[in-house]
């Protein structure tokens, strides 16, 4: 019985290696931010041409410094995203039992909405009185538009923001 298991594990490992090699040409990345902005050029001042959602899978078709030109799987190139918006793990939105097992065993899967999430935040808020979430919400609503930033950068003769050179 034990010997049978060992053979099975060896077989599974060989199959996994093969699958990985096959997938190497089409490596999938996941959007790991709430709103994944895709830009026409590899720069934060580039026009936003698409917005992807959290956990959306993409393939990388071109690399330029810290920027990745991305496409939907089997789709045409959409535009550029900064590498920090992408995870090499597969992010699973509605995790099933196998996803959870895989996440624990391989570390190649991340579970969206798991762990420290809205439900835990609510429970935490119910237990602690001296918290000010209203001002945190207000703070998060402060957004600087690309136009405002472009004006700010030009006026102050600053370098165009582009992330890691």
């Amino acid at each position: 019985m034990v010997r049978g298991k060992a053979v099975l594990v060896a077989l599974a490992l060989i199959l996994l290696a093969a699958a990985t090699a096959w997938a190497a040409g089409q490596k999938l990345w996941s959007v790991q931010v709430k709103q994944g902005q895709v830009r026409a050029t590899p720069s934060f001042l580039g026009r936003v041409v698409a917005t992807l959602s959290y956990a959306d899978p993409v393939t990388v078709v071109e690399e330029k410094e810290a920027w990745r030109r991305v496409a939907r799987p089997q789709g045409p190139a959409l535009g550029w995203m900064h590498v920090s918006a992408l995870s090499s793990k597969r992010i699973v939105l509605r995790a099933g039992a196998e996803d959870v097992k895989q996440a624990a065993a391989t570390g190649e899967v991340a579970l969206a909405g798991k762990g420290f999430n809205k439900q835990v935040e609510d429970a935490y808020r119910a237990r602690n009185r001296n918290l000010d979430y209203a001002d945190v919400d207000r703070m998060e609503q402060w957004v600087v538009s690309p136009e405002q930033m472009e004006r700010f950068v030009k006026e102050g003769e600053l370098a165009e923001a582009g992330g890691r050179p």
Partner: protein
Amino acid sequence: MSMATRRFAWAIGSLGAAAGFIFLVSLPFLLSGCETLDTAAEIGANVAVQTGTLKPAEANLLKTSVTAMSRSFKEITPEQEHYIGRAVGATLLGQYRPYYEPRLTAYLNLVGQTLAQSSDLPETYDGYHFMVLDTDEINAFAAPGGLIFVSRGLLKCCRNEESLAAVLAHEIGHVELRHGLMAIQNARLTEALTTIGMETAKTYGGEQLASLTRNFEGSISDIVKTLVVNGYSQGQEFEADQAALVILGRVGYPPAGLLDMLGEMKSRLKPGRLDFAKTHPSPEARMVEVQKQVGRPGPVRSHPARQVRFDEAMKSV
């Protein structure tokens, strides 16, 4: 999911009994940090091989999965980091009043977000946001995920946009280097990550929720205590200054801004207060470290257009 990975997952499942053995062997070490845990798994697996309970291939598989379980803050996803940051922010704002002056807030966010986009971590789950705290303490806090707070007292140490940029870049450095998450005790993380790894239901049941909330609460308390009372290590502060210099350089601000601000802080800090006087290395020590990197660039010659908008926005400080 591919056929191969499905079989792989199934194979792992079929090792249940053997895994239980290793788990029991390593259980006493579960709460004592990664290295011990790895060692325990290693020993447990080796013993199991020697006694014939496991084949070497199976043992290796188990060592790998236990290592994955004991990984630290790096396993926290940006989404979870976001909830941690919000709770840290909400706790700080329970202690400090926010200072809302629309022009100042807008300016702070312009400088800050421009800098953040040139950091090594420009994209976080919900982006960077900056807020002024209504206190004369000389203080600033960076919550994980990019919520950054600066006191009016610290703003008064800035005489120009170049110095303000240095303050914000230092805080962005802490976010980028994930110093906040590193303040969480490893035992809490291991326990939380284990709970996450065992639960398949869409929402957490009573026991899991209670356990996660307890660990969440503890994690927030670890971070806030570090930010407000104990401070980061001296090494981490110097690292954040180094990160700041990199960010400032990329955006086109001179490193002199950081030295100018530290010089002004030196004359304003009052020993014994529960602010940067307690939580940070002395401005002199930081200046020495910064000067090792950039020499003595002399005083800031502020750019005229920057000075105009700085003076305008800072009127209310």
